[in-house]
């Protein structure tokens, strides 16, 4: 297995799938010769030409919907939205068109569109370039939402997304782009909707996704010294999310913390916590802890003070471990 960077894994997934299926193509701003703002499509223009690696004008609203129409007519477009914050510009396409076309037309059309977008903080890019908005999309029937946390998942989830006949939003995390990790060569597919228990532990379950997986692992390492064993679950997919894996773990540890980088209030952690509270409350020995960003835009300065991380997760897990009724 090769050690490669997350962003390269994204590029490999696209390259392999474009090789495999001539209907797969890529649309976005600067995706051609420049290889994308973050370099994900580097080399693809040379390999596949400008009919399949398409530089768009700056008009997210329309090139996203254009991809939806193209998909209904037999193509399998991947759309890059340069920063997740810009997806606000194409919400009609995402929500009223792409997400609904299959269902509202009574299954007449397939909508194999992948929307790739880097989210999150870490670059001091400020309030309009750092948001984590995945919870919105998880609330929209018809969309699938995945958040790869490692290079292997960046590749495996993206390949699955490209082969899926439904629209899939792939939320990359900018702060992970440079991360290196082992990525299986050849056919490597990670099924959408399956979580990964990335660390076993007996005391507190931590459910998270994306960049926060690594923060949870750091917190786990820290708490190990304190004698608290964290079981860290990387959801990988937010919609659908793997209830069974989460429930199994909570049935074992009886304590749960849910963590994400997005603003805590109304984030995806609320759904996980609510579902556990609804269906598995009798297994719980302590209140469910939630970790997320404070209720304010991501500031330019003090970004690190703003972003939630291992410290907050450790604190919440400690509290869960000690808490009880």
């Amino acid at each position, binding site marked *: 297995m090769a050690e490669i960077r997350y962003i390269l894994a994204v590029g490999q997934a696209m390259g392999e799938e474009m090789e495999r299926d001539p209907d797969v193509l890529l649309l976005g701003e600067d995706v051609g010769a420049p290889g994308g703002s973050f370099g994900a499509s580097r080399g693809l223009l040379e390999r596949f030409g400008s009919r399949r690696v398409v530089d768009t004008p700056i008009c997210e609203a*329309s090139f996203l919907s*254009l991809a*939806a129409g193209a998909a209904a*007519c*037999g*193509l399998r477009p991947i759309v890059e939205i340069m920063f997740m914050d810009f997806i606000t510009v194409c919400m009609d396409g995402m929500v009223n068109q792409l997400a609904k076309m299959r*269902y*509202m037309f009574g*299954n007449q059309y397939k909508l194999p569109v992948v929307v790739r977008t880097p989210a999150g903080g870490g670059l001091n890019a400020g309030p309009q370039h750092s948001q984590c908005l995945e919870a919105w999309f998880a609330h929209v029937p018809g969309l699938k939402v995945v958040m790869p946390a490692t290079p292997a998942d960046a590749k495996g989830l993206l390949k699955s997304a490209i082969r899926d*006949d439904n629209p899939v939003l792939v939320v990359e995390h900018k702060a992970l782009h440079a991360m290196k990790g082992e990525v299986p060569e050849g056919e490597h597919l990670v099924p959408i909707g399956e979580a990964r228990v990335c660390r076993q532990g007996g005391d507190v379950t931590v459910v998270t996704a994306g960049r926060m997986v690594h923060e949870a692992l750091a917190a786990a390492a820290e708490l190990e010294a304190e004698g608290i064993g964290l079981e860290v679950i990387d959801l990988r997919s937010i919609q659908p999310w793997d209830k069974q894996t989460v429930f199994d773990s909570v049935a074992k540890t009886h304590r749960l913390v849910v963590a994400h980088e997005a603003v805590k209030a109304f984030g995806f952690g609320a759904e996980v916590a609510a579902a556990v509270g609804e269906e598995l409350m009798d297994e719980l020995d302590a209140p469910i802890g939630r970790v997320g960003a404070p209720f304010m835009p991501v500031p330019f300065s003090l970004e690190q003070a703003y972003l939630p991380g291992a410290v907050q997760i450790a604190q919440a897990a400690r509290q869960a471990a000690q808490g009880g009724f």
Partner: protein
Amino acid sequence: MSARGQKVQQARPNKNQLLAMYETMLLIRRVEETLMEVFSAGEIPGFLHVCLGQEAVPAAVAAHLSQDDYIGTTHRGHGHALAKGVDLNLFMAEIYGRANGYCLGRSGSMHLADAGHGVLGANGIVGGGIPITTGAAFACAYKHPGRVAVCFFGEGASSQGAFYESLNMAALWKLPVVYVCENNGWAEFTPQSVHMTVADVAQRARAAGVEAEVVSNDVLAIHQVAGRAIARARSGEGPFLLEVKCNRWHGHFVGDAQKYRGKEAVAQAMSDDCLARFEQELIGAKVLTAKKAKELDQEKREAVAQAVEFARSSPMPQPGDLAEGLYL
């Protein structure tokens, strides 16, 4: 329907083609009249927008299209779907929200689609269908050479950024798409002068680098320009916008009492009857006789009545079917 790529579309329509267009217009007229009636009688819930007075456009444009060309349309989309050849019974069943309608009763009038005839869907979002249909043209250029996509919309929609953005991409990539703007002067309850400074949507198109032409609500004039535009698109010469100045005979939706519009203005609008004019022309040109016209009318009335019966007697979806097909 004509062979692809050949420029036969630019020729004057022959007798059969003229009659076919006439029949399409007649069918749309009768369908819409009937829908107004049954909707007003409470048989259909939701919103219903009819295209009475605007029948020439779909008939003339679709005369140049094959079954596997694509169209995208709007809330006022019955005429376009019918002209594209959808099955009248399944069309009606969908509008009635029945389980055997094109969309299993989930879409109704406002989102009706038929993949079999390349109808990409009516759209409840004004402007929403424009980039989608442009995407169909993208797919044609990529994968289905020779096919075209036709995008219907109103002058109100042309104020949405999606219109401008889509035309820019279509021009940039020379996509085989023909934009057909039915400028009926009204967006809901508001006249064009309130929301546009330029007189013609065509002017807006040219600014995006798309050639454009304005014609009146005359089926032969529309047929001619549409033919040229579609032939151009098929042969890779890129997009075109055709604007038809027409009139909305009735309210924005069925039930809209049009208090904002004087009686005289309505009468004036209704005096623009593209179907009656075409009928007279055809009779004058001896392509049609008054008798034949009557027969055809009777035929359409019966077909529509039958479709309504079909829809009425079709089953409603079952609550248990609701969840089916959200994901493949």
